[in-house]
């Protein structure tokens, strides 16, 4: 007799676990100023470069600032600017994608060739160029990354819209007198939202890395702002003497990106089961 094993589906439980983890990370970032035991910006040169210990759980940096406090406060600038960035590019990209996909014609050709140009150029190089033209600051880093990241969303949305706009139910809606906006809002958006949201959530991790990357290069957050990328850059020269200065923000980036990616993967399994990996 052949037996077929029924594999229990743990997707829901996984989503719960990762959802709680993502929630925790965001809550820590949100309330970081109230949770820290030291002022992340107060210099205490007498206690500079202390290794991790009882007083300072993750040690101190070269100005004697508490690393744990700095990592927690740094979460705020890094994660929230990544979230802001993802929201901006998702909204902007999908709006352009909907216009292109639904309207078509010359506007579509123009916007898509524009996005081709952006996609053909190495993203980070372009972001560095934009960021350095606009001078530093984390907000400008977000703007620079937004400039190079929207085409991906525009492309995804455009292809989805083009697939849906010829469905007979859109014809039926047109016959019953629905205007373009109503058709987009009621019939197209709900059917493409899943794919867009999944892409956006999966992109949060990437965006955290890119923002940290720009800051590492000195084009994002300006000192003394606590930001993971710039903190790693500060600790770079001390990797052999006091590794905790670079390891603390590095591990924070690693863990956060991993949590966001795992949550995104699980979310994709739920919202878009067709793409599920075997």
């Amino acid at each position: 007799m052949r037996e077929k094993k029924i594999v229990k589906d743990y997707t829901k439980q996984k989503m719960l676990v990762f959802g709680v983890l993502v929630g925790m990370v965001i809550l820590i970032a949100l309330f970081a100023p109230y949770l820290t035991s030291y002022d992340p910006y107060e210099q205490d040169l007498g206690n500079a470069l202390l290794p991790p210990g009882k007083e300072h759980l993750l040690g101190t940096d070269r100005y004697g600032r508490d690393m744990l406090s700095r990592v927690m406060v740094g979460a705020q600038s890094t994660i929230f600017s990544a979230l802001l960035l993802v929201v901006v590019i998702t909204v902007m990209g999908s709006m352009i994608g909907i216009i292109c996909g639904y309207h078509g014609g010359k506007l579509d050709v123009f916007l898509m060739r524009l996005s081709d140009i952006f996609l053909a150029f190495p993203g980070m190089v372009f972001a560095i160029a934009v960021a350095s033209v606009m001078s530093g600051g984390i907000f400008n880093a977000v703007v620079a990354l937004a400039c190079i990241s929207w085409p991906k969303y525009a492309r995804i949305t455009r292809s989805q819209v083009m697939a849906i706009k010829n469905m007979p139910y859109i014809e039926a809606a047109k016959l019953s007198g629905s205007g373009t906006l109503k058709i987009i809002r009621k019939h197209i958006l709900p059917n493409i939202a899943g794919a867009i949201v999944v892409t956006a959530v999966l992109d949060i991790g990437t965006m955290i890395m890119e923002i940290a990357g720009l800051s590492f290069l000195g084009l994002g957050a300006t000192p003394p702002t606590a930001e993971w990328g710039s903190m790693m850059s500060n600790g770079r020269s001390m990797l052999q003497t006091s590794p905790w200065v670079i390891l603390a923000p590095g591990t924070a980036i690693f863990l956060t990106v991993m949590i966001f990616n795992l949550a995104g993967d699980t979310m994709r399994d739920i919202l878009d089961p067709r793409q599920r990996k075997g």
Partner: protein
Amino acid sequence: MVLEAKEISFRYGKESRQILNDFSLQIESHERVGIVAPSGFGKTTFCKILAGYEMPDQGEVLLDGKPLDTYRGYCPVQMIWQHPEQVVNPRLRMREVLKEGDEIGEDIIEGLGIEEDWKKRFPAEISGGEMQRFCIARALGKRTKFLLADEISTMLDLITQSQLWSFLIEEVERREIGLLAVSHSMPLLERVCTRICYLEKS
């Protein structure tokens, strides 16, 4: 009212063959016209043209002497498609699908045997026959003057077919809606229609 197709010619793209060639047809409000033709003769295409969805290469569609595209908003010519599952948005509950129509009266919903329970469901959760009833109801809005029924009962069992058709006939007679029925089945059209028209190969 009169719905008039004047010397319609149509083909999809330049490469493909001519589907309709100088085809003319006139339907009056009190009429029920049947169209018979084998597969691939452009019955569905003709319906789409009549509903103003496809533009003919030549010829025009007139409603009471005026071109159909001068009617803004709700289209007085409504179409019921062959595959109900393709014409409802999978993300809308059936209740919302009914709202897409033009103030569908309770009597229509009752007459088609739509049960309250079905309205709460998503399209994937009801059967094809149930869904077709919703599609018929949706097309029977207040301002509908002509109804194009494109093979609407091919997927249904005989009892359901006769239920739906007797309701439709009663409804279009009462409201003076002109009906164009497309089918492969001669006996059905002979029962339903007041006039039958053959689409010849062009």
